C-alpha cells in the first residue's frame, strides 16, 4: 500500500472525525471524505467552543478583559497576556519598569517550554506511544509549580498587568528555575533517545505530511509550522518586542517540510527558550515590578493599535481600536492556530488517515484558541 492515493477517488464515503475524538484535542470536528483508507477531502468544522472573546472584550473595561486572555490558548496563556497588555500599554502610553519586562519574558518562556512539553506528550500519544507523555508531564509539573508560586495559578494565568506584573517573584523562584533548567537539559538527551531516535516514530514522521513554504505563505501559517517548512520567521526576532533583542538565541529552522521537521523545531525551541531564561535570570535587574501612576480607570487615546507576539504556536496579534472611553471600541484577535489549521484540508489530500492524524498532531492545535 502506498502512502499516497494513486488514482482519482471513485467511490467515497464520509467519515466524521470529532468533535469528541482523542486525536482532535478538544472539540474540533473534521469532515473527511474518504476513498478507502485515503483522504479525498477534509473539511474542518469549527465553532463548538466559540465564546465570543472579541465581543466580550468590547463589553467590559480594558482591565476586565485580562482573565480572558489566559483562556484562549490555555497552554501558553502568558504569551496572550503579554500580547494584550503590550497593545494596551502602547495605546495608553504606559512605560513598563525593566524588572517587570524581565519577569514577563522569563515566565512567558517557561510557559512556552511547558506548552511544548505538553504538545510533545500529546503528539506521541496521538501516534500511539503512551509513556513519553508521563515523562513530559513530570518535567512540566516543575514548571507549573514554579509558575504557581509566582502567579498563583497553574494553567490559565492572569499575571501581567498594564504597567507591569501582578507581584514580584519569591526567593525560591530564581534558584528553582536554574535547577529546572539544569534538570531539563539533562533530560533532553533522554527524550531524544526514547522518542526522536525511535524507528517507529521516524518512519511515521519522516517524509509524511509535507507542507511547503508556499502553502504556509498562502494560508498565513506561522510558528513551528512555517519554521518546519524552511521559513525563518519568529516575531521575537523579526519584529522584536519587549526586551527580546537583548538576548542571544537562535530560531530553529528545518527545510524538510515534513512532520519530523515540525517536531524537531519544537524540540530545539525548548533549548532556545532555556537559553533566554538563563540569560534573563543573569541580567535580572532590581527595581519595581509595576509602573507608577497607572490610572485606575484606563482611557487610552483614540486610535488604532496592533501588537504581535510569538506564542508557542505562532504569531498572535491583537488589534484594539480605542474611542477614548473605558471600554475598547473594537478588539480583534489574530490567533496562529486558526491559520495553521486552515492548511490542513489541502495538506492532507490523498494521505492515509493515520498519516493525516500525525500531520494534525504536528500542527499543535489548541481548539479554544481557534474558536476564541
Amino acid at each position, binding site marked *: 500500500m502506498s502512502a499516497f492515493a494513486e488514482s482519482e477517488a471513485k467511490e467515497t464515503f464520509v467519515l466524521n472525525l470529532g468533535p469528541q475524538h482523542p486525536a482532535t484535542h478538544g472539540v474540533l470536528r473534521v469532515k473527511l471524505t474518504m476513498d478507502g483508507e485515503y483522504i479525498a477531502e477534509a473539511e474542518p468544522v469549527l465553532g463548538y467552543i466559540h465564546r465570543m472573546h472579541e465581543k466580550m472584550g468590547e463589553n*467590559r473595561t480594558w*482591565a*476586565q*478583559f*485580562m*482573565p*480572558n486572555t489566559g*483562556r484562549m490558548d490555555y497552554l501558553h496563556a502568558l504569551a496572550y497576556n503579554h500580547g494584550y497588555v503590550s497593545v494596551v500599554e502602547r495605546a495608553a502610553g504606559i512605560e513598563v519598569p525593566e524588572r517587570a519586562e524581565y519577569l514577563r519574558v522569563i515566565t512567558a518562556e517557561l510557559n512556552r517550554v511547558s506548552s511544548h512539553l505538553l504538545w510533545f506528550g500529546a503528539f506521541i500519544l496521538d501516534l500511539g506511544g503512551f*509513556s513519553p507523555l508521563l*515523562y513530559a508531564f*513530570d518535567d512540566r*509539573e516543575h514548571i507549573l*509549580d514554579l509558575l*504557581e*508560586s*509566582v*502567579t*498563583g*495559578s497553574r494553567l*490559565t494565568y*492572569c499575571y501581567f498587568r498594564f504597567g507591569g506584573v*501582578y*507581584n514580584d517573584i*519569591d526567593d525560591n523562584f530564581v534558584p528553582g528555575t536554574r535547577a529546572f533548567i539544569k534538570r531539563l537539559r539533562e533530560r533532553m538527551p*533522554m527524550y531524544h*533517545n*526514547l*522518542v526522536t*531516535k*525511535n*524507528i*517507529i516514530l521516524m518512519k511515521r514522521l519522516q517524509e509524511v505530511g509535507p507542507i511547503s513554504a508556499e502553502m504556509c505563505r498562502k494560508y498565513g501559517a506561522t510558528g513551528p509550522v512555517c519554521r518546519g517548512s524552511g521559513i525563518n520567521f519568529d516575531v521575537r526576532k523579526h519584529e522584536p518586542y519587549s526586551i527580546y533583542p537583548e538576548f542571544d538565541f537562535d530560531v530553529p529552522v528545518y527545510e524538510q517540510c515534513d512532520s519530523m521537521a515540525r517536531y524537531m523545531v519544537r524540540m530545539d525551541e525548548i533549548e532556545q527558550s532555556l537559553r533566554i531564561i538563563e540569560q534573563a535570570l543573569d541580567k535580572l535587574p532590581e527595581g519595581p515590578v509595576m509602573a507608577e501612576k497607572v490610572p485606575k480607570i484606563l482611557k487610552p487615546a483614540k486610535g488604532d493599535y496592533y501588537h504581535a507576539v510569538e506564542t508557542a504556536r505562532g504569531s498572535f496579534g491583537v488589534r484594539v481600536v480605542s474611542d477614548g472611553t473605558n471600554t475598547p471600541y473594537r478588539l480583534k484577535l489574530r490567533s496562529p492556530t486558526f491559520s495553521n489549521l486552515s492548511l490542513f484540508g489541502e495538506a492532507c489530500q490523498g494521505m492515509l488517515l493515520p498519516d493525516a492524524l500525525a500531520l494534525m498532531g504536528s500542527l499543535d492545535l489548541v481548539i479554544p484558541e481557534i474558536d476564541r
Partner: protein
Amino acid sequence: MIDYLREIISGTWSLFVGLGITIRYFFQPVVTVQYPHQTLPMTPRFRGHIELVKDEETGETKCIVCGMCQKACPSNCITVNGEKREGVKGKVLTEYTLDFTKCSLCGLCVESCPTAAITFSKDYNLAGVRKEAYIFDLKKRLEAKN
C-alpha cells in the same frame, strides 16, 4: 540491500535503547503522590476563591462596603450590600455573596480593595452536585470562623 539491513539493525537497536530508559526509570523513586491520602503543600500565593479577612483588632470584617470589588469583577460574581447604623462611622456590611460558578479567579477584586478586606482562600477541594453549593455567603463564612 546493505542500507536496508543497516536500517533494520539500527531500528531494532533504537527500540532497545528506549526500553532501557523505561527500565532505568522503573527503578527510580516515584514522582507522584497518592492523592487524597497524601497532599502537597500549597504555595502561599495560590489563588482560590475569595474570602473576607478578619480585622485582628475588632474581630470584624475590614470591609467598608465601597463596592470597588463588585465593580472590578469582570463576571459580576460579587454582591455587596451594607447599611447605615447609628453610632457607627461609615456603612456596615450586611451581605457579601460570591457566585463562584462564574468566578474566573482573576484576582481583580482583591487588587481593587482599598482596605485589603478580601483575600484568596486555599480551598481547592471543591466538588459538589448542586449549583447552590457554590453561591458562597462570605460573611457567614467569616462569622463561622470566629
